[in-house]
């Protein structure tokens, strides 16, 4: 055996084995984070890039990318006017962007991965009394506003970016920041979405087939459970829970063993990284809701609303 062979014996792991150590979602997460960071790089002259539909890249970069976009558009009196955003105070930390426009400060999440303490400190530095929490959310709404409320906050407006994410109500108004009056003296509660850790359950989600989510591009509605599970497996996604409706019309979460493969899928919602919850039932279409007699019969387009869709409460433990 020559010395090269001897050294080879010291190799603790092969490339193939190494690749098998990390999950698909961890890989995708790293790509997300890398591209978010890079989006922070200052550029001399911006072009007008097309929106990306790539799964990895939708969602997380939006806050960073939109910082410029939202601010420019809100600042313009008419298209073409050269009114540049003026940064307020020292903005080195870069967790949030504060940009002053007349009587307002626009606040956009710049880095949805920053330490929450950083956000709080930055709000404080700008004299704004904002209590901020971060909750784990499904990928396409990382960096968006999940909840906003509090005392005396009527004057605060939510900044939306159409089409950057797709919320549960079917809307494309994606909330990405706040427009706060300079003289705001109230107390605001704000919850932003952050990326979830492996195994961590999402607190807020949009449909699992929305752009930027694990099942984007798949047509699962009306298909049999067995067929959908195969489609999921090809994407390395598993069904953590099944949502069924009992004979009395009560919703219930059950495990896979309680659901025959011949049942039908009505919708899918992200559950945790790499996991979804499937709403299923015996019939191809969900049964009409029995309770209020005036309830409309579901039409082809009205699938059951995504269940945990943007349903975060203000209170739960943040990070």
């Amino acid at each position, binding site marked *: 055996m020559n010395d090269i062979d001897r*050294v080879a014996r010291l190799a603790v792991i092969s490339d193939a084995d190494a690749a098998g150590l990390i999950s698909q979602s961890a890989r995708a997460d790293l790509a997300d984070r890398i591209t978010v960071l890079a989006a922070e790089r200052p550029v001399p002259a911006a072009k007008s890039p097309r929106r990306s539909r790539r799964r990895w890249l939708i969602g997380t970069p939006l806050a960073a990318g939109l910082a410029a976009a*939202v601010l420019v558009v809100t600042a313009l009196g008419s298209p073409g006017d050269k009114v540049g955003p003026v940064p307020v105070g020292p903005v080195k930390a870069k967790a949030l962007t504060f940009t002053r426009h007349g009587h307002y400060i626009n606040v956009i999440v710049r880095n949805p991965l920053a330490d929450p303490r950083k956000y709080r400190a930055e709000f404080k530095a700008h004299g704004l009394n904002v209590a901020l929490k971060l909750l784990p959310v499904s990928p396409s709404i990382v960096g968006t506003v999940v909840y906003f409320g509090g005392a005396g906050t009527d004057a605060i407006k939510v900044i939306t970016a159409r089409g950057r994410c797709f919320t549960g109500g079917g809307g494309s108004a994606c909330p990405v920041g706040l427009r706060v009056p300079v003289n705001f003296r109230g107390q605001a509660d704000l919850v932003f979405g952050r990326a979830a850790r492996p195994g961590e359950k999402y607190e807020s989600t949009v449909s699992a087939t929305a752009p930027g989510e694990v099942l984007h591009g798949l047509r699962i509605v009306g298909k049999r459970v067995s067929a959908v599970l195969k489609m999921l497996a090809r994407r390395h996604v598993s069904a953590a829970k099944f949502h069924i409706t009992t004979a009395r019309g009560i919703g219930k979460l059950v495990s896979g063993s309680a659901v025959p493969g011949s049942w039908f899928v009505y919708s899918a919602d992200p559950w945790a990284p790499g996991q979804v919850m499937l709403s299923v039932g015996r019939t191809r279409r969900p049964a009409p809701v029995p309770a209020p007699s005036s309830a409309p019969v579901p039409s082809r387009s009205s699938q059951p609303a995504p269940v945990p869709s943007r349903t975060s409460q203000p209170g739960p433990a943040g990070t």
Partner: protein
Amino acid sequence: MWLVSKGATLRYPPAADPDERRRRFEAIYTVNCGPILGYALRRTGNGDDAADVVAQTFLTAWRRLDDVPADEGARLWLYGVARRVLANHHRGQRRKSELAERLRLDLAVTYQEPEYTGQLVGLAAAFQSLTGADRELLALVAWEGLDHAEIASVLGCSRNAVRIRLHRARSRFAAALSRQHDQPRPALAPIANGDTQ
């Protein structure tokens, strides 16, 4: 009222169409993620450190995407970056990068730190007694299976220099091995390309 239109200004590096940049990055990342993780694990023997090396290496690749050669050259270029990242890592810039968080969590579960037994103990001790430069040369041949030209590309030197340095490294390894036979076996920490033991 919608405040943002499709054509609004975004912040991206101006060099190329952003979609194209991403596609290119994804292509490089997908193919090379395993090999770069393997490279890092073989040298650090430690999941946390390896995760950081992978993250920093691909961050560099994304930021310098225009410098990454096409096809096969990409991997060699990435090895070169990973080598520098590792060197900095060993110089005490050890940091738990936020980027690598998920990778670290995965590796914490799936990766078991190596423990050498039997003959490998002495072998590893001999290897460890070499300089970092010698170890890296030998490892690029034995672990990554690179030839002289490829190593020259990774290290940024001439093929001839690789040939000469490799010859010397092999001699020194052989000498270290023979010394091993005369000495009591030391207990060994994980193998490392730097000074992590």
